[in-house]
Structures are given as structure tokens and as C-alpha cells.
């Protein structure tokens, strides 16, 4: 009985996975189900736009490009299994993904063992780049870049003395907290409170009251998506008035955050690091935003852009490698040197990290405005954030 089931399983697997030869497959791991499915969807949409653009231009190496998705269900072990499925079974020459830092960290070793290049689109925790392996690349900036840029910005704008960090209990939150802790200490900024919170709960008032008691000049929020809305709303409620509200992106950089669908007026004056904005001074940014909005009915956050750009980079690399050998593709990705793209310049350093420019934005009048670095800024930062009682 067992043998028959095993045999049937083997046949089924083979029948399913043996693919046609007229296309080139790229392996994509992302979270299509589970707690991070919203970001997986953003990934999927970004990839879809890139795919159509690539194929409209004739594909790669004269063949159509095809995406081979593996759903990691927002679980690290499933992501690991995805590496084997895509590489051993489907024989893809290159991988892009996954979404979260947890899952990215989990697949690093298996990817290195499989000897295929991996381009990480969105995982910001810096431990995913710890391996220093030549097979691992990352297109997005990491938590250290976020922290450094934020500190740099603060030192340019009034040099505050004290800071509180409020972070959510995930790899993302913890990584950003640690990066900021180091960066702030180095810059001589005193950390007066470090608060952790459980995401997706409706009440952060207690946390914010504790922060208020510590009376910091700056608050640095590290939080996902809609927690940002709740945090700002309740900051007003407990009348928390730091001079600067800063944050490590994600929730504070989501398209809805400054609108009435997000925190609305409570979002005003918050600073955030950002990987990308539709208004960024990079050619193709606005077009991507428009195309995304047309197709999917909402404006993209930077996660979709990172997925989009990752696929373009990989397709370019295959074309310039003129080969599907993983090692050749790896070398071609390493040699990538885009002076400009919709995601800004793309160039990988010796560790495989893209030298991405981190932007700092501030919500002014219900919109994100670029306020730092000065060479791309389009507005002046408003400092300090007015007290809640003085806001209209």
C-alpha cells in the first residue's frame, strides 16, 4: 500500500514538474498564503508587471520568460523546501525571494549549498547578508542603512540628544532596533526607552505612555503595516510629543498611511526612511506607479517595486551572461551596473549588497515629501512636530 502511494506520488510529481522547453524559468519564493500574504501579493504584482515588460521586448535569450512560484506559506521551513523544489525539481538557474527576513535568513545556507544565485528583494534584517557568500545578493537597503541614514538626517537637522525606540516583536523589528541602538549610541544620542510590542493587537497605549514618561526628543518606530496607524492615533490620544517622529519604513511608508484610509491627519510630520517613492527622481518610477494602479486598483508600496526591479535585474543578467549556467548568471548579476532605473542606480558591492540610496520622507499635507538626502530632496523638513494640542 505504501509503495503504491509512493510510486503514485513520484509519478505525479514528475508529470507536474517536467516543463516545456521553449521558455526560461525563474524561481520565485514568496508568501502567497499565511500572515504575510499581503506582501506576497505585492511581490506577485510587481513580478507580473516586470514579466510582461520583459516578454514584450522579446524575453531573454530569445525565449519567453516564465515565473515558477513557490508559496512559502510565510513559514521559514517551507521556504527552504521551496529552494529544493525550484532548483532540484524544476532546475531553475536563479532564484528571487522570499518576502520576509525570517524566511530569507532560513534559505541562505540551502541556496549556497545548491550553488544558484539568489536575489533578495525585500528582507531588511542585516543578518540575511551575514554569510558573505558570492551567491547571495540583496537589492533593498538593510536595517543598518536605515539607522545610519536616520541618524545622519537628525544630525543635519538639530542634533537631538535623546531617543526612544518602539519596535514590534519580529525579526524585522528586532533587527531595526539593534541597528538603531548601535547607530544612536555611536552618535552620542542617549536611548531613554526601548519598548517592544506584540503586533496586530488593538491597544498600544500602555507602551506609548511608558515612552511619554521617558520624554525623548526622538521616537524611532519599527513597525509593520497598519500598526503604524494605530501607533500614531494612540500617540495623539496619550498626548505624546517628541520633537521628531521617525521610523524604519514599512507601515510608515505605505501608500495608505498618510491618507484617510490610514492614519490621515495623525500621520502628519512623521519622518520615515523609504526605499522608493513614486515621486522619487528616478525614470520609470511614475510609470510603474501608474501601471500598477491601472492593473491592480491601488498604489504600490516599495515592496512591489523591489520585486519588479529584481526581476528586471535578473533578466538583464541572464541576457548579458548569454547562458543559463548559475555561475555565469551570478557573475553577471555581480557585474550589474545600472546608472539609473525606476529603483535608482543598481550596483552590488563585494558582499552582494546593492548600494541603494535610502530616502527620508516626511508626511506634509497628506503626502510623502522627500526631505533627505539634499541632492534628491524636494521639500524642507518641518521640525519640530507641533504638539498635538496645537495641531488643527
Amino acid at each position: 500500500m505504501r509503495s503504491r502511494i509512493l510510486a503514485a506520488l513520484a509519478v505525479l510529481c514528475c508529470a507536474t514538474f517536467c516543463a516545456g522547453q521553449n521558455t526560461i524559468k525563474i524561481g520565485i519564493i514568496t508568501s502567497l498564503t499565511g500572515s504575510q500574504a499581503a506582501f506576497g501579493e505585492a511581490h506577485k504584482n510587481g513580478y507580473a508587471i516586470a514579466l510582461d515588460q520583459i516578454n514584450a521586448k522579446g524575453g531573454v535569450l530569445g525565449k519567453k520568460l516564465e515565473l515558477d512560484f513557490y508559496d512559502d506559506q510565510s513559514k521559514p521551513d517551507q521556504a527552504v523546501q521551496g529552494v529544493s523544489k525550484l532548483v532540484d525539481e524544476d532546475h531553475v538557474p536563479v532564484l528571487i525571494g522570499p518576502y520576509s527576513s525570517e524566511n530569507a535568513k532560513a534559505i541562505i545556507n540551502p541556496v549556497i549549498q545548491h550553488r544558484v544565485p539568489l536575489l533578495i528583494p525585500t528582507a531588511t534584517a542585516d543578518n540575511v547578508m551575514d554569510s558573505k557568500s558570492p551567491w547571495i545578493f540583496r537589492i533593498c537597503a538593510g536595517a543598518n542603512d536605515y539607522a545610519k541614514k536616520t541618524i545622519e538626517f537628525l544630525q543635519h537637522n538639530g542634533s537631538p540628544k535623546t531617543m526612544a525606540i518602539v519596535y514590534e516583536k519580529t525579526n524585522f523589528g528586532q533587527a531595526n532596533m539593534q541597528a538603531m541602538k548601535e547607530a544612536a549610541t555611536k552618535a552620542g544620542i542617549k536611548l531613554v526607552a526601548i519598548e517592544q510590542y506584540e503586533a496586530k493587537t488593538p491597544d498600544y497605549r500602555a507602551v506609548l505612555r511608558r515612552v511619554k514618561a521617558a520624554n525623548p526628543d526622538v521616537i524611532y518606530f519599527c513597525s509593520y503595516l497598519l500598526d503604524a496607524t494605530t501607533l500614531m492615533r494612540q500617540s495623539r490620544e496619550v498626548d505624546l510629543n517628541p520633537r521628531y517622529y521617525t521610523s524604519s519604513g514599512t507601515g510608515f511608508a505605505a501608500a495608505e498611511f498618510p491618507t484617510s484610509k490610514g492614519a490621515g491627519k495623525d500621520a502628519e510630520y512623521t519622518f520615515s526612511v523609504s526605499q522608493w517613492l513614486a515621486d522619487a527622481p528616478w525614470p520609470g518610477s511614475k510609470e510603474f506607479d501608474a501601471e500598477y494602479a491601472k492593473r491592480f486598483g491601488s498604489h504600490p508600496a516599495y515592496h512591489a517595486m523591489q520585486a519588479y526591479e529584481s526581476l528586471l535585474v535578473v533578466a538583464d543578467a541572464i541576457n548579458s551572461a548569454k547562458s543559463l549556467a548559475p555561475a555565469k548568471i551570478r557573475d553577471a548579476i555581480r557585474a550589474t551596473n545600472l546608472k539609473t532605473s525606476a529603483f535608482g542606480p543598481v550596483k552590488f558591492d563585494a558582499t552582494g549588497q546593492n548600494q541603494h540610496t535610502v530616502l527620508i520622507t516626511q508626511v506634509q499635507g497628506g503626502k510623502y515629501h522627500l526631505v533627505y538626502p539634499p541632492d534628491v530632496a524636494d521639500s524642507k523638513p518641518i521640525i519640530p512636530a507641533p504638539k498635538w494640542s496645537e495641531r488643527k
Partner: protein
Amino acid sequence: MTTFFQACLDGLLIGALYALIGMGLALIFGVMRIVNFAHGAFLMLGMYATFLLFDRFNINPYYGFVPAGILLFVFGYVVYKLLIQPIRERSEFMQILMTIGIDLILIDLAQLTFGADYHQANIDLVNRTLHAGRFTINAASLLSFGIAAAFIIGLQMFVMHSRPGQASRATTQNRDVAPLMGINVVRIQGLSFALGIAFAGIAGGLLLPALYLFPSVGEDYTLKAFVIVVLGGMGSIEGAAIGGLVLGVAESITSTYIGNQWALAIDFVLFLLVLSLKPSGIFGRQRA
């Protein structure tokens, strides 16, 4: 001291919603002895129903929760008829397995229908803060609390005084004798199941303005509901109400004095303490 009372106040406000969730579960457990693992998924459906009314027809969630509750009542009844009634004589194991299956199906269906995106219903009331001396209260939370309290009392009255309510209590007390007293147990179980689900849906609707929405939002609340029901004494409806309030206050105090990340842990610690010291629940009497 202000901090302490403020923490209690915040805890009570959210606790009333916990109470609603817990009472729904207690009702189902009491009458049917089924531990409903899909409770959080029904809560999620209630949130989606309320959200859709808000998003498409601009109906304020504080009205929208009513049709959402009614919808969930009907849906709960259908689920009972199709999936629960056929297995009501099966082992406890199989019944739990069934609700786990239902949970998976509902969450995946929600994702396929509504997408995995996060949603939020922003209404003005959420942004209004009331001041009472040195204390602050969010207006929306207060309204949710008031409505929840009304439903809690309403359910209690219904169970104590109405004919179906008495029949359901009789069924809770003894499932074998109840039919001899002329009670149609199947009908009472169906009604109780549907009512329990409706309460989960109403709680979801009231939670919507404070929280945000995505397909697996209910998972944490399933576990919370278990904790509440055990705190209050399994199957005891008034116990669940008090259990919910206790849980809200305990979480809030933990969050204020120890740290928010331990707030969920306190749920389970409390739960284990009660289970090992007084399994009949803090407020549970000997099963009557």
C-alpha cells in the same frame, strides 16, 4: 496611581469585546460540548461583513455590525445543519477536527474572495478622545464597550428568562434528560451555535474600528476565547463575560508594568494557573 487606574480603564474597554467573543464560545461549548476552533474565523467573517458595508455602502461600522451579526447568525445555522449536526454524536476528537477543518476553509476562502490585503475602517469617532480628569478614553472604544455591555446583559437575560434560553440551559445541564422534558435538543443546539457565531461576528464588527483586517486576523482571538471561557468556567455565560473583562485588565496591566510583548503570555499563564488551581474557573460554580 493614575497610571494604574488608566491601565484598568483601558483593559475594561477592550475586555468587554473579549467578553462578547468568549460568551459566544461559552454558549456553543455549554450546549454542545464542542470546542469551536473556528471561532476566530467567524469573528474574521464578521469583520469582513462590517468592513464591506462600510467600504461599499459607507455604512458606519457602529450600524454595520448589526446586519453583520444577523448574517453570521444565518451562516452559523447553515454551518451547523451541514457540518456539525451530522457529527453531533461523534467523539469529541472528531468534532474538534471538524472545526479545525472549517477554520482552514473559511480563512482560505476569505483570502481568495477578498485578497490578502490589510484593510481598515477609518471613522471620525476613532479619532475623538474624551477627557475625564486625568484619564483619557477613546470615544470609539467607549461606544464599543457600551454596545458590548448591552449585548452581554441582553444575552444573559435571554438565557435566564426566555423559553429557548431556558431550554438551552437545560441542555447545558444535562443533554440526556433535556429531550425527556420535551426539549428539541437539535433545534436548541442549532440555535445556540448560530447565536454563538453571531456574537463572534458582532464582536468582529465592534473590533473593526480599533483593529485592522486580514484573512488570518482571527487566529489569536480563537486562543483568547479559549482562555476567557476557561477563566470563567467552561460553558458558563456570565463567567465568560467576567473572564473577558479580567483578561482585558490583566493584559493592560502587564503591558503597562512589564511590557507589551508579555501581554499575550499573561493570558496563558493566567489560564494555566486557573486550570491547575481551580479547574471550574475563577467564577465557576460546581457544574450544576
